[in-house]
């Protein structure tokens, strides 16, 4: 059972990391858009 | 062609990616007149001409062709029937001879029974219709004369001449001057892009492109 758990946790970590990165980019883009207006 | 065709262009600008070729260029050309477009090399004379004849889209600004009697605007698809153009960047089919070139252009321009007209144009520019050497064998002068022949083949109300005198011998240049004068008498609108001092004199109106 534990290897399944292992894979799941790794996938969750990857997903969290991806989400954080994209979220940060989203924030930065919003700031750039504010600058332009 | 009955009444002539008026050409109007205002606030024309053209940019190739980051390089602005010209900006805010306006002007008009009337039937029976010669609009001379001057400017140092690289100022965009040829680009402007390509835009005016509809082969290139301007980044900004408008180009309009109006029937001089009534002022109705001619739609873009019908422009091509109104235009004749001589330009260094436009050449003819090098594997066809002079007559074949003209016959082909006459046919695709929808001219009927154009054989006589083709021969007449050839003779008027000083080329012998009987000679069947292909255009690749032509001297640059003969090539230039054939280009002028095709430009007046369908008797267009608007004529664009981009450095028309280049490669012409002195006799050719005199003949060219007569041609331009003759076109003006027939109420044609001539747009001339040149740096040649003599050709500039033919212009009744001028648009100077900044360097």
């Amino acid at each position, binding site marked *: 059972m534990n290897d*399944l*758990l292992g*894979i*799941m946790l790794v*996938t*969750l970590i990857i*997903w*969290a990391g991806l*989400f954080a990165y*994209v*979220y940060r*980019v*989203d924030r930065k*883009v919003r700031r*750039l*858009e504010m600058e*332009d207006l | 062609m009955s009444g002539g065709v008026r050409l109007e262009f205002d606030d024309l*600008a053209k*940019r*190739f*990616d*980051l390089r*602005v070729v010209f*900006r805010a260029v306006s002007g008009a050309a009337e039937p029976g007149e010669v609009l001379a477009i001057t400017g140092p090399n690289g100022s965009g004379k040829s680009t402007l001409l390509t835009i005016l004849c509809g082969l290139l*889209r301007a*980044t*900004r600004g408008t180009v309009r062709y109006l029937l001089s009697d009534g002022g109705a605007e001619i739609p873009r698809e019908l422009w091509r029937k109104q235009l004749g153009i001589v330009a260094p960047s436009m050449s003819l089919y090098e594997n066809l001879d002079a007559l074949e070139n003209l016959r082909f252009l006459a046919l695709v321009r929808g001219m009927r029974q154009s054989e006589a007209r083709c021969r007449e144009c050839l003779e008027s520019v000083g080329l012998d219709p009987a000679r069947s050497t292909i255009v690749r064998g032509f001297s640059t002068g003969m090539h230039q004369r054939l280009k002028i022949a095709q430009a007046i083949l369908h008797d267009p109300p608007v004529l664009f001449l981009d450095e028309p005198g280049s490669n012409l011998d002195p006799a050719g240049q005199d003949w060219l001057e007569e041609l331009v004068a003759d076109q003006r008498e027939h109420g044609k609108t001539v747009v001339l892009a040149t740096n040649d001092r003599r050709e500039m004199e033919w212009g009744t109106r001028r648009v100077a492109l900044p360097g």
Partner: protein
Amino acid sequence: MGTVLRWVLFVWMAVIIWAAFYYAPAASGFQGQSSRIVFFHVPTAWVATLAFLVSCIASIRYLRSRDPKEDIRASVAGALGLTFAILATVTGSIFARIMWGSYWNWDPRETSITFLLLIYAAYFALRAAIADPERRATMSAVYAILAFVTVPFLVFVVPRIYWSLHPDTIINTQGRIKMDSRMFQVLMGSLVGFTGVFSWLYSLECRVEGIRRRRQHEVL
């Protein structure tokens, strides 16, 4: 995409990942748990197709309105479509490896995705080959529509070529693994999740491209 929606997406996908491993049972007829890749392979293929659709609609709209924003949408959808098509092909070959023991054997689904991959590759090869932004936009829009017209022919061709090109391969004939209800729910949930991720990335990248083009064109 409001901020709340983003967090909902985050939680949704986390739940999907958990469900894919624990909520859904392993499909029968497989070596152990490896069938769970279906929850990640099918959505990527679905998003690649969806992105192609979005790219084609934006291309048609560009040709009508000549509005650069449509060109941005078409190219961004294309870029995402290419990424997901690659993901789908990779997960597909792993999936084939599990199901039939060979990495690649022109299974109907694989052919459609590979076909899509070829089209995206060609689309970007064309975009790279044209310098003038306006001409690039028009030519790539025309190509996208040409490819769009060809896809249905392949979708209808695929079942036929599957039998005629390889009549002799002894692959599980029904081609579809049996789905019990829980697996089906997780798969649908995963589809929704991936579509959410796609639309977020899509709108984000459109905005980024918009800013880049605006910055670049300050000159005129």
